[in-house]
């Protein structure tokens, strides 16, 4: 097959993935491209490719590596901003990925740089950029100084930009946008000041806002306002939308995962469940109206947002085919919901937790007040970093397992501001002990099928493949392949830094590539 034909095929698949709304096969992941942050709309991060298998993975070879050069005016991107945390898109034989303020295109076969765009920053937290979205001939990405930038896909030249949040309020922007039909969906980050999170839908052509959905009520008549003590608390109640969304094209529902309430730790002035923070929320992408919600951490007091991936899949449950969505939440709990209505089918935990007394009638955890942060300290697991965090999980329809990059982590939680009207943080956790794990959850039982304990610190994104493999980062700055069914480690390659994003896979020229970011370097392995 010629390169031109492959590119055409990729473009068609991209178009199909991004625009198919009624086809029954919208969930099928493409094989010669990776056109969204998660590879498709579902968030499964599952590759149907089978050239690389558990039997031959040790024959992988290095195809190329690309080291990012941010240039002399990068502003000292420390604190994570200089790492490749984004998941690259692969469209038409070109990889597109981002770092804070930077978008880069490289040839997917050779790693040769095609273009590099640098945004002149006004500031903001340079913690990382999750990635880009592409629609037609335009690439979109968010910048730490609260902008979404549109670039020409072919050469990286600037088309337009739009301010999406207020930098003075210490918001910043980092998520990979999502294109759904004629909507460019963006989110916002920042939990320093007590400000509200929201989702904006923008016109992909002009950047004009189509609608905004606030995570926390802005008027007393809005749903959820009765879960706050007063409107002042609700309006400033946080709930940042800092992780990419998933989507069901058939139900036409976007699944938004929301951040923790504000003030974060000290909480005397926000009694109540604090909706719709720390929740999975289904929105109609055409109107911005909420269809259902499920709150993973009612009245969170531990900085446990619920922004981990809400993964869409179909599967059998109690003998019936069901439309499901699942999340391994930062608080250590595992939820499987009916994604048509948000009803919980499974509420369990993927690591040991000690902060809740059980589940309510909706399957939501009931926090144990004794494990709230205290002036003299409370011993709690998970820690603030959570049992899971931003590194994306994966679901394999082949094994039926949900793979969680996890931690069994303990720390002491303290209140620093015991006043009746705390602001911002007012407490935090200290110290701790942690074990890094890769947990394979059986969605039907809510129990781990297997757990792999790492000898050291490891928590990065996960890719599962139809070759019965799981790829993720290990504790020795290595990329590791495990048997997807058993968890047995099979192969690894030491890199120059700890894996910093989620691996992806695609096939070009009848060769299956495996791409992973580690620090400032993108690595490509191939099975010839």
């Amino acid at each position, binding site marked *: 097959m010629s390169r031109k034909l492959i590119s055409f095929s990729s473009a068609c698949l991209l178009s199909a993935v991004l625009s198919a709304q009624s086809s029954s096969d919208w969930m099928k992941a493409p094989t010669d491209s990776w056109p969204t942050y998660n590879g498709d709309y579902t968030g499964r991060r599952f590759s149907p490719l089978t050239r690389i298998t558990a039997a031959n993975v040790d024959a992988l070879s290095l195809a190329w590596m690309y080291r990012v050069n941010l240039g002399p005016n990068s502003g000292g991107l420390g604190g994570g901003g200089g790492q490749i945390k984004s998941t690259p898109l692969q469209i038409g034989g070109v990889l597109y990925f981002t770092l804070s303020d930077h978008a880069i295109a490289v040839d997917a076969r050779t790693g040769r740089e095609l273009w590099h765009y640098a945004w002149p920053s*006004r500031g903001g937290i340079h913690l990382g950029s999750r990635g880009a979205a592409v629609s037609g001939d335009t690439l979109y990405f968010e910048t730490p100084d609260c902008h979404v930038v549109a670039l020409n896909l072919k050469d990286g030249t600037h088309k337009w930009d739009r301010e999406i949040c207020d930098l003075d309020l210490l918001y910043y922007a980092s998520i990979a946008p999502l294109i759904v039909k004629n909507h460019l969906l963006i989110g916002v980050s920042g939990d320093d000041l007590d400000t509200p999170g929201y989702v904006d839908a923008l016109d992909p052509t002009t950047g004009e806002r189509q609608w905004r959905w606030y995570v926390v009520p802005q008027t007393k008549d809005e749903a959820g306002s009765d879960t706050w003590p007063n409107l002042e608390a609700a309006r400033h109640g946080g709930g940042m939308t800092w992780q990419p969304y998933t989507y069901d094209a058939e139900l036409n529902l976007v699944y938004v995962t929301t951040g923790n309430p504000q003030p974060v730790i000290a909480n005397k002035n926000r009694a109540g469940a604090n909706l719709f923070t720390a929740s999975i929320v289904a929105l109609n992408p055409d109107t911005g109206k909420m269809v259902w919600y499920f709150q993973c951490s009612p009245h969170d007091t531990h900085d446990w947002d619920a922004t981990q991936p809400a993964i869409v899949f179909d599967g059998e449950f109690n003998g019936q085919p069901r439309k499901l969505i699942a999340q391994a939440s930062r608080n250590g709990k595992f939820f499987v919901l009916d994604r048509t209505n948000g009803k919980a089918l499974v509420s369990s935990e993927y690591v040991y937790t000690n902060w809740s007394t059980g589940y309510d009638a909706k399957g939501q955890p009931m926090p144990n007040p004794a494990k709230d942060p205290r002036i003299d300290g409370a011993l709690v697991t998970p820690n603030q970093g959570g049992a899971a965090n931003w590194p994306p999980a994966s679901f394999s329809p082949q094994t039926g397992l949900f793979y969680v990059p996890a*931690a069994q982590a303990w720390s002491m939680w303290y209140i620093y501001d015991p006043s009746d009207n705390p602001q911002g943080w007012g407490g935090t956790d200290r110290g701790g002990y942690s074990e890094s794990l890769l947990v394979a959850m059986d969605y039907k039982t809510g129990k781990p099928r297997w757990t792999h304990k790492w000898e050291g610190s490891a928590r990065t994104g996960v890719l599962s493949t139809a070759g019965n493999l799981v790829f993720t980062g290990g504790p020795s700055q290595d990329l590791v392949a495990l048997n997807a069914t058993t968890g047995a480690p099979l192969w690894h390659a030491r890199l120059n830094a700890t894996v910093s994003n989620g691996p992806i896979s695609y096939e070009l020229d009848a060769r299956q590539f495996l791409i992973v970011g580690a620090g400032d370097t993108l690595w490509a392995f191939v099975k010839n």
Partner: protein
Amino acid sequence: MARERGRFGLFAGIVLLAASALAAQAQGRGGRGAEPDPQTPAPGRTGTAAGIGAGPMDYPAVDAAAADRGRSVWAAECITCHGTQARGTDNGPNLIRSLVVLHDRTGSELGPFLKKGHPLQSGQASARLTDAQITDLSHFLRQRVNDTLRGSPIFVVQNVLTGDPNAGQAFFNGDGKCTQCHSATGDLAGIGGRLTPVDLQQRFLFPGGARGRGAGPNRSAVTVTVTPASGTPVSGVLVQMDDFDVSLRDETGALRVFHRTPALKVVKTDPLETHHAMLRTLTDKQIHDVVAYLEKQK
């Protein structure tokens, strides 16, 4: 939002040290997880090795002397309605969350607002406040905002000595089985004088810190014994282990590296395993009782 962990701090030096310690801990002990616990950078701190901070680059840093002068203006003209910490009262709104304050640059917003006229405690017209007073007020208010950020210098652990030392002693000598390894008159003699109460509490729960792992002999170092299929067992301090390789430093100081195979027997010994395991069983009362007891060992 509870972003991922991994930013650097308001007070870069302090936080970089803390991050280094945490990173070392993560490397050596399994650590805290994927990323170290961050502190919030102050608005306007830019271009440092620690990265670009929260907020815009053109936020002026707080001038402590100006903030102190502003505190006097605040006490004379504002405190009754807006409160000591500017968080509002029944008579006036919260200014920590005020857009005028958050958009202000040393008086750029606050000045025009006050010049238009705003009630003051003294009864004088707000327009009569001098530019210098407004600038001082701006620094005072920015300092109040920064005080709410994680990493704020006013955020410190308070009193952790809430337990019963007698109950702590009983637990230490009884159900806690602490005396299997420790003695209040031996290795822990005087520990209450060497550590602050909060450090004592943290050390009790999470001992070892960044010390040990592969760094050389010490009590908390993890050791490993590797036995090849045909050969003599080799023991030493664990340097690094994963699913594919294991390396140790033997008694001569030499680094020994082994590729792991099913035939290679590897036995790891962590002297702190008991501490790790008891995290699942300790109650908060037991923790505070033991800390109250150990704090008295001076």
